[in-house]
């Protein structure tokens, strides 16, 4: 880890002039063989790795239309170059989306196009070399796969798709990232990203029950592996104990309790997160997702609900049906899966949940749209529900609510700076600099509208903000979750109608 100076936040954001190479010293720890092997990857760089890499690129572009189309379609118009938070925060030109894509595209051109084979220098084509591999390793882990570039590209080119392919190629020749690959290994072994044993999860849930009863006087249950529960809750494992996440987890429990919905966590699938997404590994992403299907079948639940996690929700909403479906054994009256915000919003609208907004009067919150939720998912029936539903919950539980600048929200939201496998200590300089656009937007409403807290529905955003806010002299405890606000304001007055039956049935 290197020392670095936290840059100043500016009143008016500035698109910096390029500073080539300025982030070339930053890359994450490489995975050791014992982390690579369980995922089916070589333990270290294989002998003919250049050929293996080029072949793998060929294989991937034959399996993913996105990769093939995006490699051909870029016209280097450059309108993406000022859209990436990592470029805006670091000024390293290889963090500009088109330039980041070109690290791979140049190799694609060399081996798979006529122009690249015959006139490489004219079309920016390169041989696959060790320098190129190291450059890929540096810069493809300086992408959080947030898709902001794909919003503005005239062709919808998504750098995330290219980063995923590059990471899969690198893992396949033996150069994987320790963080993401280790986490995948933990889920496959323990059922969650953190390597928590069943006993540890059980203890955590039990102490939550005690805490909540002590605080509210109400026996809110947090069940584990309960057969026949109506809802299987799949939350990011950080929700079990990290701050501020756990306060949101308590909020989920209160919502289910008040609505009389029986629910359970599964030790086999105690993880919403799916790091298979980050490394572009269909096989590993599928293995992780299948645990949820297995748990749902095993426990005989009728619904699957995901907690507040950004990329988990992307995988859940966009891919779960593909990877682990069909879900014809679940209640067809509910979408599979649902987001906890969809559940809470629906209950709110039907008058099942009541809130005392004054419980949140000490706060003036603003809402940060998390990238995967904003640009890779939906909530509710209509496009854009992923923006309105969480905000409606905030407005229903708080008397104050302020929006940041719209150019930094909705589908143009700025990544928190630590998504896509970059939430590690050794990438702290990247995380702090990448957070700058969001921090500047936040500072504006803190200064002008007296905003005190920033609310999000992503475990990575919550962790990143807690860690990074102090670098800018902001309070780490400014970072909150939506269901934390719910937990504060919800009125728990349900008469006990018995366990195992849902009192409020949909239409």
């Amino acid at each position, binding site marked *: 880890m290197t020392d670095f100076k936290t840059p100043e936040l500016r009143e008016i954001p500035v698109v910096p002039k390029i500073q080539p190479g300025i982030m070339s010293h930053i890359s994450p720890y490489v995975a050791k063989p014992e982390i690579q092997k369980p995922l089916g990857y070589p333990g270290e760089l294989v002998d003919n790795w250049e050929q293996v890499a080029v072949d793998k690129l060929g294989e991937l572009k034959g399996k993913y239309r996105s990769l093939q189309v995006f490699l051909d379609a870029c016209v280097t118009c450059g309108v993406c170059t000022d859209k990436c938070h990592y470029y805006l925060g670091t000024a390293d030109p290889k963090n500009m989306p088109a330039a980041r894509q070109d690290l791979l595209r140049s190799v694609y051109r060399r081996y798979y196009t006529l122009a690249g084979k015959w006139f490489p220098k*004219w079309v920016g084509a390169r041989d696959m070399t060790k320098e190129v591999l190291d450059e890929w390793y540096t810069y493809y882990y300086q992408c959080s796969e947030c898709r902001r570039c794909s919003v503005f590209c005239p062709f919808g080119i998504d750098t995330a798709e290219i980063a995923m392919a590059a990471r899969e190629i690198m893992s396949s020749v033996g150069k994987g990232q320790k963080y993401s690959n280790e986490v995948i290994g933990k889920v496959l072994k323990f059922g969650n990203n953190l390597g928590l044993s069943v006993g540890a999860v059980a203890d955590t849930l039990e102490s939550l029950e005690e805490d909540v009863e002590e605080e509210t006087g109400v026996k809110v249950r947090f069940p584990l592996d309960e057969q026949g529960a109506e809802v299987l809750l799949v939350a990011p494992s950080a929700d079990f104990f990290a701050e501020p996440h756990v306060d949101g987890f308590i909020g989920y429990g209160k919502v289910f309790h008040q609505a009389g919905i029986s629910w359970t966590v599964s030790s086999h699938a105690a993880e919403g997160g799916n790091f298979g997404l980050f490394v572009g590994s269909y096989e590993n992403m599928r293995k992780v997702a299948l645990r949820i299907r297995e748990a749902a079948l095993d426990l005989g639940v009728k619904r699957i609900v995901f907690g507040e996690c950004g990329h988990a929700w992307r995988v859940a909403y*966009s891919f779960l049906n593909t990877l682990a*479906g069909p879900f014809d054994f679940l209640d067809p009256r509910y979408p599979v899966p649902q987001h906890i915000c969809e559940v809470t919003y629906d209950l709110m609208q039907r008058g099942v949940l009541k809130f005392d907004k004054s419980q949140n009067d000490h706060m003036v919150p603003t809402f940060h749209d998390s990238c995967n939720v904003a*640009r890779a998912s939906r909530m509710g029936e209509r496009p854009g529900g992923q923006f309105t539903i969480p905000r409606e919950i905030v407005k229903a539980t708080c008397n104050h609510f302020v929006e940041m600048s719209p150019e930094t929200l909705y589908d143009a939201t700025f990544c928190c700076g630590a998504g896509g496998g970059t939430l590690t200590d050794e990438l702290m300089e990247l995380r702090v600099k990448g957070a700058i656009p969001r921090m500047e937007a936040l500072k504006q409403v803190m200064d002008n509208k007296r905003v005190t807290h920033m609310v999000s529905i992503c475990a990575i955003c919550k962790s990143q903000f807690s860690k990074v806010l102090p670098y800018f002299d902001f309070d780490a405890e400014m970072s909150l979750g939506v269901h934390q606000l719910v937990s504060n304001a919800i009125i728990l007055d349900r008469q006990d109608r018995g366990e195992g039956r849902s009192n409020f049935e949909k239409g």
Partner: protein
Amino acid sequence: MMVFMTGLFALLFYAATAILLAGLARKIAEYWRTPSPLKIPTTPAPTTRTAVVFRMGREILFFESLFRADRWTWIFGWIFHLGLFLVLARHLRYFTEPVWGWVALLQPLGKYGAFAMVGGLVGLWARRLLVDRVRYISRPSDHLMLALLVAIAGSGLIISYLTYTDIVAVKVFFLGLMRIDLGHLQILPADVVLFAHLLLVIALMVVFPFSKLLHAPAVFFSPTRNQVDNPRERRHLAPWATEVESSAKK
């Protein structure tokens, strides 16, 4: 001498047409048969196929995403493409007899189209040279392509306004090529500017399927724009993914 030039251009146009059509067909077939195993539309995204058609329509007609991204690039880019459309449409009169109704209607707009092309291209090229971020990502082929397009539009304007040419003879030549009437091909007028214009167009046709101009067919296949956002409602499965599933079944 002119017989030789005529024969040479005939050969070059046949070759260029074959390369352009075969090259495009190959690429389009490749995009068509490559599966999209996961639902990845950039959200918020349309939830019905009809709405997707509208989304794609707004992109190709109005460059919607580009409009949001950078107003100046949109202005120069859109004006160039509008000009290109007008010029191409108007050029149809050289390949059709009788001339189609709507082409005849567009006739007066053709020259504005040419100026729009040059204006748009010059604006885009200036940006590519002057903005450090865009300069950084530019390859020699990007500049060459701009030069080629400016030269085509420019030489066309020179023919139209300065040097003129026996345009009727040019049309008869092309009609003869299309009817493969090789025994009676019209001899091309001895015009240097005309030859330059035709040669540059041939170069463009040959380079097209190997260049970034593939963005034209590619945009229709972009999954982030052409997919329906309905993964929960309908199970989306690519053939190879189905295979992964059935081979993994216990």
